[in-house]
């Protein structure tokens, strides 16, 4: 669905999983938007003006009105373009509560443990983070079974709210897997999620915007070098 020029803009950075969430949501709804890539190390005037509280990406500008925080943007996109594409959140209030619960879990528990693997200074600390990450994925595997109801995604037949929440981290998960020499989305430990991960990355709405692992690795090395 073509948007009028300047109607929809997204301030972001290509490596950010949070920005990726917004992009996938917009793609799912077929919304045309202008991607305003922030310069690394510098925050634009527009960003600072649009997100004065956190000064972070992503920020969605719809008719110049800012929406901040990735999952809030996803929910906004779902509502603002309710007539386009498939629903991102389910219609039933209880199902919605479940999706919201797991999205919060993914950010509060899964992300810190995954990130903890990268940050770990000692082998011990790394091992602990790995255990935590696997434990979180086990819970997410169970959640997938319940929410997907035998279909391809957490959202059922199509990519939904929880898919976006978790899927956005897949690029960085691959980087961490390579750097740490282990498998996070392990076919043996979490078979359903291992398949889901491939499926998510291959999806129409995702594949063009999911950053390539090699590029992320380079970016990560550059960050470490700093």
């Amino acid at each position, binding site marked *: 669905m073509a948007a009028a020029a300047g109607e929809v803009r997204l301030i972001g950075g290509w490596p950010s999983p949070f920005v990726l969430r917004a992009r996938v949501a917009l793609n799912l709804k077929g919304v045309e938007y202008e991607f305003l890539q922030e310069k690394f190390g510098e925050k634009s005037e527009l960003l600072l003006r649009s997100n004065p509280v956190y000064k972070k990406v992503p920020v969605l500008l719809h008719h110049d009105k800012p929406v901040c925080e990735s999952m*809030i943007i996803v929910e906004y996109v779902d509502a*603002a373009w309710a007539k386009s594409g498939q629903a991102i959140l389910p219609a*039933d209030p*209880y199902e919605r509560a479940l999706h*919201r619960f797991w999205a*919060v879990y993914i950010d509060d528990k899964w992300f810190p443990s995954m990130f903890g693997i990268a940050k770990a200074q000692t082998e011990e600390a790394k091992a602990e983070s790995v255990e935590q990450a696997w434990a979180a994925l086990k819970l997410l595997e169970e959640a997938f079974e319940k929410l997907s109801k035998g279909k391809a995604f957490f959202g059922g037949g199509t990519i939904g709210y929880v898919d976006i929440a978790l899927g956005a981290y897949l690029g960085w998960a691959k980087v961490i897997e390579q750097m740490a020499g282990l498998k996070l989305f392990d076919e043996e430990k979490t078979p359903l999620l291992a398949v889901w991960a491939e499926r998510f990355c291959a999806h129409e709405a995702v594949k063009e915007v999911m950053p390539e692992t090699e590029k992320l690795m380079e970016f990560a090395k550059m960050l470490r070098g700093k």
Partner: protein
Amino acid sequence: MAEGENKGLVLLDFWVSPFGQRCRIALAEKGVEYEYREENLRDKSPLLLKSNPVHKKIPVLIHDGKPVCESLIIVQYIDEAWPDRAPLLPADSYARAQARFWADLVDKKMYESGTKLWKLKGEAQEEAKKEFIEILKLLEGELGDKKYFGGDTFGLVDIALVPFTAWFYSYEACANLSAEKEAPKLVPWVKRCRERESVSKSLPDPLKVYEFVCFLKKVYGIE
């Protein structure tokens, strides 16, 4: 789930929890009957452990046997399950995004920052005070001259924030921080909220909160 059906509504809660109070306020705003169950957090009930196996925390709202966890998720669930009355979120999707943003900010900042005020001492406490005042001023700025955070209608952000006002007395007693002095524009808003029965019935006596804080300080060995 049929609209208006409220048989089998149970709220697992703990009297002083601002997160539990959010749920009580939302249920009261909707005029929905429910069974309140006080949990002993040192001896959690089998029902709590079964209903929230991931976090094992209150509040949990159990509706016809199905548990909903996380206070702001519960409040939104209550709003969506009883859509025919007292909307807690605005109709406009942009306004809803704003409400969620500010409720999320309260979630991210108030509890942690507030807790530091009575847990820490000396330099660390002074830092915590600065941080807390910043948050109050931010919220004050967002409220502006509006009746409630969402405008004319009491809603999600008010519900997210108002339970923490019962802790203002404790913050003053423990950290010599007067929220009323630091963010005077919030004062009429607090008064307005407390005039709502849903709020006045759900919030604890600030003195009782202070007693609880003192008890916790003893437990943690804080002077």
